[in-house]
């Protein structure tokens, strides 16, 4: 009955320890989905990788707190596209 939650956090180990089941590594507390220091294009691409990883996490069965890497989302997207 529940719906999966992809939690994006820069302090991801803490999210896992405290029981969030699908956790994605965010960039930094002050800018979780991206990095202004990268310039607009790379900032957006980084944020997109994080968001894709979080969406990917929603599709994965897990048995407990699990960390998802923002780079995995990229690979998954390539797989979907082909």
């Amino acid at each position, binding site marked *: 009955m529940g719906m999966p939650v992809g939690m994006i956090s820069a*302090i*991801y180990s803490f999210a896992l*320890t405290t029981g969030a089941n699908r956790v994605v590594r965010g960039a*930094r*507390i*002050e800018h979780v989905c991206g990095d202004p220091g990268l310039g607009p294009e790379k900032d957006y691409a980084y944020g997109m990788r994080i968001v894709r990883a979080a969406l990917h996490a929603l599709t994965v069965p897990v048995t407990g707190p699990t960390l998802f890497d923002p780079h995995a989302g990229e690979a998954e997207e390539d797989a979907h596209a082909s």
Partner: protein
Amino acid sequence: MRLEVGSFPVRSIAFGSATRWADGRLTVDKAAALAEVRRDGRIVTADLEIAVPGESVRIWPVRDVIEPRVKVEGPGQCYPGICGRDVTTVGQGRTHRLDGMGVVEVSSVNWHDAGGDFVETYLDMAGPFAAMYPYHRLQLLCLVVEPDPTLSDESRNDAVHGAALRLADHVARATVPLTPPGREVFALPPCDEPLPRVVYVWGVHSPQAMSGSLTAFCTATYGLTQLTPPWVLHPNEVLDGALTGPYRTAFAMSWTVANNPLLLDLCRRHGRDWNFLGVIVLRTEWTTQHEKQLAANQTAKTAAMLGAQGAVVTWDAGGNEFIEVVRTIQACERLGIKTVFLTSEDDATDGAPTMLEPLPEADAIVSTSFFKNVTLQVPDPGPVARVIGLPTKVIRRGSSVGLHGGADAALPTAGTLPPPGRYDDHYGFGSLSAIE
């Protein structure tokens, strides 16, 4: 490092024609003292007031309480590095202190303008709220000071804190030619017996994350407030004020740091109950997991390299800063260093864990009770006869002051006020705790 500390008790403060100390009486030449304060052209208004124990007086806003300390012999200057002061390593020679008093820095200047951090502390000298803190037993010389309002935040902070330090220097210097009634030597000589080797891991908030600045004002290590790898300090450096400057809570003041009872006991029982190796300052509020874990690992490694078998750990903040502190404890335990954590607790409603990130390695915790004054059910301090400082206190909607969800309000300082948001006895001065 050997430091002789000469203590001059202060049982009363009065204004007079010259600044001098005699038989527990401190006389302050107001004009001379204010001239010292005004040496910085950034100071626009300054005045001195005295508050005594038991008086119906409220001091607001309290940015810092500083115990006057001055070097008499040995290198450097007390409260080194901050506000442009000499950065020479301190902790040796002879230092004089005025015991039983504090210089209170009273100013409307806030820490920084990035939001989230506000000066909230006010002090009463009588009543149940006053009794929660050590200051109500001190003679307080209050500097009510305002800088040029057009200056930057950092400049204004620098100006008023520097002014408070100059005032502290001025009164402390009255003791320089005198023989202290009380003297204590602080040193950590090699221990004959195989006593357990212990370090004090001291978590200190850095304003870097909240302010977005490397140089925002706050508690400093030799004047540096930014996030840095851990610092190893000899306890004598702390006694000479190397860890200085305030943060948000009434227990995070230069006075409580220099008079930290945990640090003093560690020093005094060296060679008897333990071999005290020193202090490791862990600057906190890193904002990625990577940095937090790195700070923790390196602090634990430093303790191990010093030879620590045990560590007592404190911190002076709240929120996510807990993470690097508890992970330091975890890292120490994993290196075989036995830890004790002295900390406050979060809300326990519905049996919730009161440690932000409960880790099983943090298995020896001493609690200084719930940090929220709301949870402690501290009654609102009532009206007072006199106010030192601003006549109104802004209760900011959404500041950590209670649960004021309405509009920002400005209440008369002399009337009933909500207590500041946090109690938080960082160094275990009191016996308030929690139990289940």
